[in-house]
């Protein structure tokens, strides 16, 4: 399961992710992170059955945790199945099926957004 963790780094600069890994023993996979001096945002992946544990531990440490159920939005009425996105995606979430129709494997998507500007038909967008 993918979780979006946002936190402010005001006081104490708690190493939230490291702390939660140590406390819970859950091996967290950081898919991507954007952290500066005042705030941070990290997309992490955890096993489904340990999701609640990680989420509660992080919330306790002052982070906001949101479960990401969806990958990037694919607007099928704009998509023409050209496939420009396929080689751009670092997680290989896009593919063409046997009928050359574009398929998106949402499980693989880490919402990095790289495909969005690469789509000539503006058929891709980040979920709200």
């Amino acid at each position, binding site marked *: 399961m993918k979780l979006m963790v946002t936190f402010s780094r005001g006081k104490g600069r708690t190493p939230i992710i490291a702390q939660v890994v140590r406390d819970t023993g859950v091996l967290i996979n950081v898919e991507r992170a954007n952290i500066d001096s005042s705030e941070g945002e990290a997309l992490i992946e955890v096993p489904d059955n340990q999701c609640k544990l990680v989420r509660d531990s992080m919330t306790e440490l002052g982070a906001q945790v949101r479960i990401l159920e969806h990958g990037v939005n694919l607007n099928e009425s704009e998509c*023409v*199945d*050209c*496939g*420009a*996105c*396929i*080689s*751009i995606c670092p997680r*290989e979430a896009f*593919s*063409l099926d046997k*009928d*050359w*129709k574009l398929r998106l494997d949402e499980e693989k998507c880490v919402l990095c957004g790289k495909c969005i*500007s*690469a789509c*000539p*038909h*503006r058929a891709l967008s980040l979920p709200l």
Partner: protein
Amino acid sequence: MHKTIGQINERIREGSARVVTAEEMPALVAELGEEGALKEVDVVTTGTFGAMCSSGAFLNFGHAEPPIRMERIWLNNVEAYGGLAAVDTYIGATQQSDTQEAEYGGAHVIEDLVAGKSVELRASSRGTDCYPRRTITTDLLLENLNQAIMCNPRNAYQRYNAATNTTDRVLNTYMGTLLPGTGNVTYSGAGVLNPISNDPKLRLIGSGVPIFLCGAPGMVIGEGTQHSPGGGFGTLMVTGDLKQMSQDYLRAATMTGYGVTMYVGLGVPLPVLDLDVVRATAVRDEDISVDILDYSIPSRSRPVIRKATYAELRSGAVEIGGDEVRTSPLSSFRRARKVAAELKGWVESGKMELALPTRAIDPKKVSRPMHETKKVPRVIDIMNRSVISIAETEEIRTAAKKLLKGETNHLPVVNDRNVLVGIVTTFDISKAVANPGKAVLVQDIMKTKVVTTTPYEAVDIAIQKLEQHNISGLPVVDAENHVIGFLTAMDLGKLLGRRGLK
């Protein structure tokens, strides 16, 4: 054995013509043999759906009251050509909006019209005795226009070179997003389904031949601009009635960093007259190869990384220098199939009959590069020749003095053989002075990754380098990496005068 176009049309009228797509044809020829396929198949339909920048439409608005001779014309703030008198215009697909730039352009105006949306026409004129009106603004639907005739100067490229990027930064091109370090390969074209690839000698495709154009029955006008079948890059000029077109086969698009383009669906039905046609239409993806070009070289002649067939490109990855590099098509093979299939239906049902060219297209022509009479300004024309450099083993203090004395902001750093090894700027020196630490020598603080130019590089390319790297000066080096000059943004200002830097 051979068949005449008359016999084939007779069978189309009877509803008994056997029509297959160009994708189905190779297997059929393998199964029935060439003679068998000639007997069996009457028509092979082709199809392609991809970005075709050189597209647009002629529009006639009808006369206003009082009448106007439009001189400057905008449709949804996209400028259209105003040199056709009175109330005619040509809207080009790649023209960008004055207000939304690359996110809306001529292609979007055309798609909006086809989609039944209202488009705002705005025009101005100086006013004449016969056409007194000076301005007009009105909302128009496609049905309000007398004519809306798509006329595309260069469509249906026989094939197109694939693209990759060996630099260390992302390139945004008309071949889409190219990832750094040969991170991906993009390609375009329908391969096995491409019209000219199924008739490379252009025996069947020529002026007057009926085609499928964006869902409407259209026609080949003749050879396309830049038609270069001698090198495997034939093109077609085509036309069709916009009023009969469908959004399924006509889509506006934006290549990020490049601009607006239009995806066009186009198919040509080919009559199977003789064994030559059978052989030509038996072409497969494996038989059509293109060059993979390095788009990091900003030149007309880009280096070829390797050749690849459409079969290899379509497999999802190609091997380059021992690595598997993933490929992205930019054209839609699924829609190309849809074009060929719909065209097949048209011929089977008798909606479209076939015709031979009324005027043939030259199958051997080779397109020439531009004849340029004025020399492009080169770096050597404007570079500063009295360049001050410093040895890497000098003290930072000496560098500071040199910068002051030379009234310059950049100091190329050289080794004992006078070869460029780094660069220091006034910023680097100030930083070293403000934070005195262990750094004493120039080599301790210099930047070793130096962006350089060469004397015969075009000034516009040097400008691109300055912009991309957000820097203000470039050492000019010879083949041995000796510094022979320096180019700064100020030198460019002198040359360009009012044109200036962006």
